[in-house]
């Protein structure tokens, strides 16, 4: 069993190739410190993230999911993040409605030049998920 005091959350971060992934890269290159709880999955665009990926991640026992894309208007594919924003608005509201803690699933905008902002967001998300504790809802137990 994991020691509860030493428990560290696992967070999956879907980062868009053009902005947030480069933002994370910049944070790394600039040696900005941020929690090492995230597992990055690079996606071509935040619009590529199917809500099913997020639910599937929770089902597989991930404590939190972060999806990050370009700021509205800066999408490499013109409108991918804007369409994603609509999807995520519904998904987030629905998950909260059925009783999944709102902090588990988060969305953010990080541009390629915002290494510092990326680190801050990761810190904030990690802190929130840590407060919520290990995920129990939705998890598939074998």
């Amino acid at each position, binding site marked *: 069993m994991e020691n509860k005091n030493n428990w560290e959350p696992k967070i999956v971060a879907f980062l868009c190739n053009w902005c947030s992934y480069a933002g994370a890269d910049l944070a790394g290159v600039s040696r900005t410190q941020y929690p090492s709880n995230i597992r990055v999955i690079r996606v071509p665009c935040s619009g590529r993230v199917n*809500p*099913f990926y997020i*639910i*599937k991640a929770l*089902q597989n026992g991930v404590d939190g999911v*972060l999806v990050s894309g370009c700021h*509205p*208007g800066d999408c490499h594919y013109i*409108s991918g993040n*804007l*369409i994603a*924003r*609509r*999807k*995520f*608005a*519904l*998904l*987030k*509201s*629905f*998950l*909260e*409605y*059925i*009783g*999944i*803690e709102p902090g588990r699933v*988060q*969305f*953010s*905008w990080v541009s390629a030049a915002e290494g510092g*902002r990326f680190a*801050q*967001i990761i*810190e*904030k*998300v990690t802190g929130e998920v840590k407060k919520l504790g290990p995920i129990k*809802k*939705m*998890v*598939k*137990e074998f």
Partner: protein
Amino acid sequence: MIEKIKEVVKKLFKEDKIDIFIGYGEGTLPLRTTPCFITGPDNIEKLVWNSYCFNNLAVYLPRFFLPQLQKKDLKFPRIGILAKGCDGRSIVGLIKEHQIPRENLYIIGINCSGMIDIEKVQNAVYKMQEVEIVSAKEKSGKVLVENEDNKKVELKKEELLAEVCKNCQYTAPLIYDVLIGEEKRKTKEKERAAFIKEFEKKPLEERWKYFQEQVSKCIRCYACRQACPNCYCKECFADQTRPKWIGATENISDIMFFQIGRILHQAGRCVDCGACVRACPMGIDLRIFTYKLIEDVKEFFGYEAGISLEEAPPLATFKPDDKQEFITEP
């Protein structure tokens, strides 16, 4: 009303405007009707119209217009269909999603006065399924039910209306070729979303408990999917093996995935016809979840499903100033 329907259908066949007509026929059990496919003017007498015509007939449309049928040089049939308000909205959704061509449809709109929930009839008089209802008659807002011991009970139709029909907003379809029945049924607009607001007020854990309770009843028969006019996908995500979204077990997590997935797929498309709720053999309260998305879509994007043919589907479009308060800022 039924005379008028028959008259219109007869005329359509006579003028050779349709090949098939989809309406309701007498069911084999009392309080039930069955979908009825009529291919010629001889069978028109089979049609019925009463308070048990609750099936959403739009669900039968996409199968007539499958692309593989076109390849064989077969001409698509021209279909006449009887549409209540909810059916009509489903048809609009299907036209918009290019599943059925508008020019092959002849929509006979009907002003629906609400459908009866069979369960409510059974619960009102007898304990469910203990006594069999052998006949049911309907007359001026009242339903006369008779059981196997010849015991007769009279019930008010208003009290038996299905939950979805009670506060229905569109009793007649918005797009039609002929409309039968003029009077518009008045429903209480304010009370429509009251059950959602009430549920929202409950604490998180209680909501989760309720969701879990409802979902744990699910046996994954997929009746909700089959009954839904929006679920026309050739291969449902629930049946996919690559990627395999849902395990074949009865693990509650898999069932949750299916339910969340199906409900999310209805976002901006569900017309609240109640077909899934009626189809569910386990009596899952699906509407409390599907209606939430209807409310959200209306609130966030100002969109209602099945109203216009021109308006773009909400998840295929965007506005620069869409709701963004949920985004995490450092």
